[in-house]
């Protein structure tokens, strides 16, 4: 097996599993990471999947940031919580 074949030894499924998992190291050290990025470069479908997962993460962060602006303003919620809890524990 040539070096080039070896560098292209990562499968799409393994690539995608690592992208969505995000927690477990690839194993195999820097050579495996190199395989990962070689695969990212040559496989348009995996690159798209990688972008999709990143976009889902980003969208979730953006949507959650909107939760900082609920219909009832946060100071009102805090005031209600304070009143309710103080009443209960006073």
């Amino acid at each position, binding site marked *: 097996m040539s070096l080039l074949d070896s560098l292209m030894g990562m499968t799409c*499924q393994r690539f995608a599993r690592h992208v969505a998992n995000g*927690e477990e190291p690839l194993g195999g050290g820097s050579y495996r990471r190199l395989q990962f990025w070689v695969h990212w470069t040559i496989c348009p479908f995996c690159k798209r999947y990688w972008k999709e*997962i990143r976009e889902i*993460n980003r969208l*979730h*962060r953006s949507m959650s940031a909107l*939760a900082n602006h*609920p219909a009832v303003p946060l100071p009102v919620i805090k005031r209600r*919580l304070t009143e309710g*809890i103080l009443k209960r524990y006073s």
Partner: protein
Amino acid sequence: MISAEEIKSLIERYTANLMRAAFSLNFDENEAEELVQATFCAYLEGGSRYQKRSQLLTYLFGILYNKARETRRRRDRHPSLEAIDEKFDSHFDAEEHWDQPSMDSMTEVEKQVQSSAIGHLLKECLDGLTEIMAMAFTLKEVEGISSSQICAILRLTPSNLGVTLFRARNKLRECLMNKGAVIV
């Protein structure tokens, strides 16, 4: 006994984080407020159990998660987790390459139209996650909590956390695709 000033400070400091987590678990505003109140009450009633080895916010997330589970268990049912893994595997052929490549690219105009709707769709899709998936995903991506702390809150091993995030992201992706969304 905790003083009124300490209670006010607690609410002032942590309400926003807890409300965000409750929203991500797809509770509406009233339910989220109730959940946050129940979280503070549980902390005040069992505060002696809190050990200062962890941050208070981490401890509160743990309470909120358990309260959310109790509530959602009563009202929700989810498809089996294995179905998500099977769906993921079905995208690959015997050589582990994509069997059905993803969607076509969009034009810039299409992207603008899409982006206004996709957030809405994502919210709907979040409702399809189990509470542990939604909580792990939110703590990781929104709150920026470290993996070790998430494992402590959700009582997961690092390996299980990886699997949980893997399933959450793929389930969201599948759901968005099924709704016709083009993500990138």
